[in-house]
């Protein structure tokens, strides 16, 4: 679980991540920078550690690949709000330890 999608890639250079970290020092920025996010459908819980500025699309695809689901048929919800691929934890005002719920695509006809 600890190995997340982010670990593999080198952290982006300092200036870019200055937005949220601000002047809180290197350690504080780093602490702020990373969020632990739990992604759960009703059966599985997967924890991701991502940066605030990382697009959640990465997380979503990682989860889908791990669970063997097609991204088109899965909806990620953060507090009932749909998470779009372009969203980042920043835009969704996510906190450390927040949960993304994974729902099936809603389809109805009758």
């Amino acid at each position, binding site marked *: 679980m600890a190995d997340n999608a982010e670990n593999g890639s080198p952290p982006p250079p300092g200036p870019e991540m200055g937005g949220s970290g601000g002047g809180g020092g290197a350690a504080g920025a780093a602490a702020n920078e990373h969020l632990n996010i739990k992604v759960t459908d009703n059966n599985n819980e997967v924890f991701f550690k991502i940066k605030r500025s990382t697009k959640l699309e990465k997380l979503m695809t990682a989860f889908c690949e791990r669970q063997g689901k097609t991204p*088109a048929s899965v909806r990620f*919800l953060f507090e*009932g709000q749909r998470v*779009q691929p*372009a969203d980042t934890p920043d835009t969704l005002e996510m906190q450390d330890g927040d949960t993304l719920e994974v729902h099936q695509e*809603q*389809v109805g*006809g*009758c």
Partner: protein
Amino acid sequence: MPAQAPTPRATRNSRGLRQSPGVSSVDSCQGDSARVSCHRDNRSTPTTSNFALALEAAADPATPTPRTRYAQPTPHPAHTLALEAIPVEQLQPVTPNPRARLAAARPPIFPPPVSLPPTTPYVPTPPPRSSLSLEHPWVTAIKNTPTRIPRRAASPRTPVRHTRYLTKYIDITPLLPTAPAPKSPGSESLTFRQRRDEEGEEKFARELWIAIRNDHYMKGCWCGPPNIYNSREEAEVAAGHLRFYVVGSEEKNLRVLQKKDDFSWHCICGNNNYHAVYKNLLNSNGKRPAEDTEIDLIAQIQNSNGNKSARSIDRVVPTPIDPARHGEAHSQTLKPAQAAAQVSSRSMWDEACGILSRTVATMSSPVAALYDTLQKHFCGDSYATLDTRRTDADSDAIVVKRLKRQSPASPVEQSPSKDGDDGFDDLLWADCPTQHIGSENIQDVYLFIGTQFQDIETGKLVYGSSVADIQKQAPDNTDCSASIGIFKYQELRHGPVLPEELDRKKKEKWMETVRAYHDNLKGCLRFIQEIYCVGGILEDVKRRYAAPPRRLPLRDIHFRREALLAAKFLDFLRSLDIVRDISAASYQTISQMIVDINAIHKSEMLPSFVELREDPIENMPGCFPEDKVSAMEEIPADEFECEVLYERRFPDPAPSDEEARGKLGDYKMVLEPKGILKPPKVRDDAPASPKYVATPEKHRKLSFINPVSKFIPPAHIPTKLMAPHEAERFLKAKLKAEVLRDKHSTRKFEALQTVSRQDDDGSIRLKDKWSLEALEKDDQEMGLTYHAHKYDGFLNDLHDDLEKRAEAEEEQRAKPPTRLAPQRHMVQIPLPPLPSTPAMRRRAAHLLENDTSSPASSSPRINPLRTKAEVQRPKPAEQRRAPRTLEEFFAEDDDDLAISVAKFEQLQIDRQIRDEFETGIRRDAEEKRKREEEKARREEQRRLEEERRRQEEERRREQEARRQKEAEEFAALTGLRQPTRPLIIPLSEDWNCKVVNAARANPAAELVKTLEGQPLTRRDFVEKLLPPTAWLNDNVIIGSILYIADYINKTKRATDQEPKCAAFTSYFWPRVLSHGPSACGRLLRKAGVRKANFLDIDTVLIPICAQAHWTLAVIRPGKRTVAHIDSMRGGGGDGAVKAKLLELVRFILEDQFVEAEWRAIDYEAPRQTNGWDCGVFTITNAMCIAMGLNPKYSYTEGELTLQRRRLAAILLNEGFKGEFSLDGF
């Protein structure tokens, strides 16, 4: 005769043929074999030669004996010297030579061919033996090699094997690419030396000698075995194409003397058999390929002696031999050897060609051919014996007897015994099983094996790394044969012991071998006991079978398997040197035991159990001993194969009872049954079973072409005869056709008219055609005269009779209808009969001629073709009038009756007109009355209808008023109204194209983004929206509903945070349900719904997806209503949802919530009847509600397929703008 033979003698001599200096001129004239025989004659004892001479003379008086033909050569001085050195008593064998006896016993079957060098009865020439002191030790050693008395002589009943083996030799000795063999006379070839060096002097010499001798015997060569001489000089003067001599006393001192240009081991003494074989060996060029036996005999001997790995022998047996093919095959098999030999022998080969061609010439003489034929006739092809491998009885190879594997003989030969078992004809049960081998021998071997067994049991074993080592280690005077045997067995099983091997492994191997050796010894002992002890198997078998059966399956298959193992082990034991050292007798004993034990394995009769019955027929005059096929056959012991080599293709068809019973674990070979009829092939086209289908009768008439049948009537003869009534019809039709101006019909009748001849018709020139001469000529040509004479009168009478009868009938028929015109009106068109007879035709021709000459004179119309009698009595009706043409006939026809008919018709018409007039008046009056009545009725109806309409209108108006009032009330409640124009209209062409393109887009491409930020892909359109029965997904629903809210807000100039219409996603409601409204603050805020502005919002749209069904929850805070629109319920909603909505409102408004104000209502909406449109219903309802329209009046269910396209277009358009603007509803 040999002198006359065109032999290139001179050249041979010039080549430096090594000859003894004392060879006479006569001798050198002869072929090699001649010389040999001469020499042999020289050396042979006078008694023997005389005897042989007498024999030959007796056998073939016509043939001059060699003695007479050839001058007795003067013995060479050296030779004489050699002879002198030999004591006389040694020259004369003490025992009569078996060969000589054989020759004496056997009458010469065929005279030797004339062209061949004279035959000398075989007298084995003892080598020129000097006294023991003179003879070289090697010579003695070689001479002492066990020589066997030829079997043939010992037991004449034993036949030779009439099989021909194709044998492939593989020379395992590595042949270095050697230089060509030295040409210098008398020197040994390189190969020869090489081999000798490798194999050791004594062994090599012995085996080579044996090989050569065997070759001789095998080929039936009559000359003696090669001799070994004490010195080169001696050898040079001696006879024989191959002479061995000993040089000095040191090692490697055996030399061979070869003729320079004949490097064959074999002799060419000219035996017929040999020549036949020889001929077969010629290749297609007529040349003899390099003989295999030359070098490879040695290899073969070597191979057959225990070196099992080198034994690769292909047997192709026994086939009736096609000489040419066989020769080829043989030469093919020889190729490897040949190739090896050729390296060294090529140059010599070239030189040898001359001699060979001479030999060929000799062979092809007619007598040889005759001999071949005779031989074939008597012996059959299969008798040709070519077993180049076989070591014969005379060698030290010990021959064992075994019962021949007999293929099921033909029924004549086979005499099935009473119990159904086919026994051997000439076998009897032996009294004692040891009879065959000899009880002493058996005991000897038993003892030998038993000692080894004892040694192992008691542990008297020595372990060593080699045989020598073992021998060294062994304590003195102890028998270490067991140890050596085990060691060899280990080598056999595990390969040679390598020095670098681990001790542990060595020990393991050794122990394993000891165990196996022990077991095998035990098995051997057991078998020997069982077979040879009195009261063993033999007693049982005797009890069971009266006569020796062909097949003798003993015990079960395990027993037989063990027998194979035991036989193999005995084979191994036999190959041990230690065994061979004991004695040749024990070697043979073991071989015979192997045969016996192996027979058990092969389920054959054990040779020890039977003995041959004396056959009285054998000595019948004219019967050759060889002709009798014995049950026993002989094979060299070395050759005996433990494995089953015989063919299994034709097993005994009738298995014995023993086998049929079958035991557990006993396997039988099940052969494909032959001779069982296969099911017939079913052909599709043919019936399943052959049924008798009668050939359809052919109605075929044999007919000759009759000239009459070919007769084509001339044009003037009418083709048709018309009776009067026919004519009448005909004329009427014609008239009608003319009246109607039917040209076709008219023409047809005119054509007919020409047929009915008219006198004044000048179209026919009778004179031209109908002259008498012409007619007669025709008659003759057509051969009508005969028919005419024959049937003339008869046909005429018949015709008259028929005509009369027809007329009578006609009269009868014409009488009753009175309306018909009287008889005289009837027309008879005289149609003459066919002038079928020449007489009649002639008459007719006469008449016609007369007619044409005076046409007017024939006013009383006479049928010109009638006979005179007929003409004289014309019919009354006919006579009275005969109208010329049809027009005349009609003109003349008087019409009293016709007129009266016309009047009558007129009268009738008048009456009819009158009637009609009256009825018309009557009808008029009636109609008038009816019309008036009708009018009155209609008036009344109209009045009633108007009244009804008025009432309906009133009712409708009332209803409408009521409805309007209700609608107004409803609208007042819901704030909904009717749309001013239809909501769902077809798309424009442009947008149709765009939708279609979207459906064809790249699957991964992001076609458009919803307000939520959700990208829509082709999947959302193609799979979830556009197909008429697709279920909509959340992307489409949320996207559309957000666009609706956006449109409303934009048109009402509301901001996102102060909206007039708020919309939620479909994930809002699940969260409300699961977490309660309190957890949705974020979502509410995002939608712009707060306590402060909530009551200013017109519409809140909440799409709900529950159990695969889309519904819409609506809150209209302005109207203080909550509603749930379910398309399945026609706009009605679920109470639970409404309650939850109210709860939500209460949560939002908190203290501002006045429960009394809020109501849960139902809207009216079209009802969904299918199973797929609820999403579209939901969106459309949302549109209507948001715009304040009553969904019920805004759309129908049928429009929703179109609405799907519209929605797709709206989504692609990113909202209700442009064409899709909702303004003005």
